[in-house]
């Protein structure tokens, strides 16, 4: 009689192999991305242009209107937009438009055959990449600080909340983008929808300006949407003067949004793969 040696995985082994998968994928990402330092720097420099423009514009306005705009001084703008650069780097996730490439090139078929949900690979790979990104970001942040003199005096608690919040922002933005990415199962022209999302995020997340500068109704609207928890909250937790209560409450709301968005993604994904037929692979 032929028997196989393969025993079913014990429960502890499953958890271990899960952790192992994450660590290995992250290590691979670090090793890969460190080789493309120049490419990573090009990307980052292009990214930094955006906040520098906002910063310069608002500094000019602050200076011409007596030192501050709505009570925000030039140095505080500098702090906001320099912390912005780190948050933005943390916010780089597997983008929705790449789902089109993944489906068209047949990459997705291979991923479906694996025992793990494909989203774990995205989360792990981009999380590993952050190690490289943050390392490369440090000299840039020092340079920006020397030029723009940010007013930054965080407390220990604020630093702790910030560190948790940037990872929360990473997970939340992953969930949002992956959900939008599901549209590519139905159309090859998701670009317009994606642009609409980017514009909404730009205005309602605190990416363009600190939300305090927006008209009241925009701020109210932003309260009901997930976007401000990916930019405004992490930045403000470090730069602003939030009370302990609102800091912790903020983290709680972030967690709720993450759980909510991943639930939406789960349904969207299940619906999408029923619709999927393979193209090579």
């Amino acid at each position, binding site marked *: 009689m032929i028997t196989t040696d393969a025993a079913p995985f014990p429960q502890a082994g499953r958890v271990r192999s899960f952790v192992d998968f994450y660590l290995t994928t992250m290590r691979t990402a670090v090793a890969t991305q460190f080789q*493309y330092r120049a*490419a990573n720097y*090009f*990307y980052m420099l*292009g990214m930094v242009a955006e906040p*520098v*423009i906002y910063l*310069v514009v608002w500094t000019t306005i602050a200076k011409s209107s007596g030192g501050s705009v709505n009570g925000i001084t030039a140095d505080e703008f500098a702090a906001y937009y320099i912390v912005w650069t780190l948050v933005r780097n943390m916010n780089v996730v597997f983008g929705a438009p790449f789902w089109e490439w993944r489906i068209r090139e047949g990459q997705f078929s291979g991923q479906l055959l694996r025992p793990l949900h494909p989203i774990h690979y995205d989360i792990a790979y981009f999380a590993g990449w952050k190690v490289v990104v943050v390392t490369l970001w440090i000299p840039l942040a020092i340079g920006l600080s020397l030029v723009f003199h940010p007013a930054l005096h965080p407390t220990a608690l604020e630093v702790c909340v910030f560190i948790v919040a940037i990872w929360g922002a990473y997970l939340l933005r992953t969930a949002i983008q992956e959900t939008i990415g599901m549209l590519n199962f139905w159309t090859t*022209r998701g*670009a317009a929808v994606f642009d609409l999302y980017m514009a909404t995020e730009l205005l309602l997340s605190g990416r363009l300006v600190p939300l305090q500068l927006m008209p009241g109704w925009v701020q109210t609207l932003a309260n009901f949407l997930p976007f401000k928890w990916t930019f405004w909250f992490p930045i403000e937790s470090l730069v602003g003067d939030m009370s302990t209560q609102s800091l912790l409450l903020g983290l709680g709301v972030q967690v709720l949004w993450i759980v909510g968005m991943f639930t939406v993604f789960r349904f969207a994904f299940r619906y999408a793969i029923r619709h999927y037929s393979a193209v090579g692979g």
Partner: protein
Amino acid sequence: MNAIRVGWLYLKMGVLNELQYRVNFFVQVLQSLIQVGTGLVMLSLVYSHTTELNGWSESELLTLIGVQILLGGLIHAFIQPNMERLLEDVQQGTLDYALTKPEDSQVLVSVRQVRIWQIVEMISGLILLIFGLTRVGSSIGALDAVAFACSLTIGAFLIYCFWLIVTTGAFWLVRMEHVLELFEGVYQTGRWPIGVYPGWLKYSVTFLVPVAFAVTVPAEALTSRLHLGTFLLAVGFGIVLFAFTRWFWRYGLRHYSGASA
């Protein structure tokens, strides 16, 4: 002259090819609407806190944004697609197909690709520009209009030179696709009058990445701010940069050994 004929032929082929995908027109219209909408929101946000930015009124800045979007459309339609293709060809080794043709290689790599639907972006920029101008109120003389057309052409040409210089760098660096993000990021500096930027940035976006020449100078022509000296400087810089681009392209080619197509 042969180069112009070849270029024209490629352009016609590219247009015919693109015209097959008509839905892309509507996608492009939507994208342009979003782009213009975001621009207007930013503008009204800034001017809700101030009445002038570095001496530019809201209507004048609207003209500037119009020029920036118009030129952006031009870049996206004619320059960027070619440079992306060139980057890809160097990576994949398929550049040999272009190099083995008898026509001048720089001409060939610059005219192979066109995204004609981006014309929608150019039109939306033009609409903003005209709308801004009617609100500025001052009449535009024939001389201003000619200066605008000339400086916009020079600007597009400068951007082309810049792009080709950077792309030629792929002969050594190979992986350069992030340069696209870098350019898009830096190009956004053109949305605001160049005077607001601190010195180091002002000179970078004037001479390193010629956004200032490409966007600010034409907009200055329209709002009657342009000095003859600035205009002549743009022309001179264009000639020098083109000569350098030509030399650098050939120098790069000598270093390129192909990667077996």
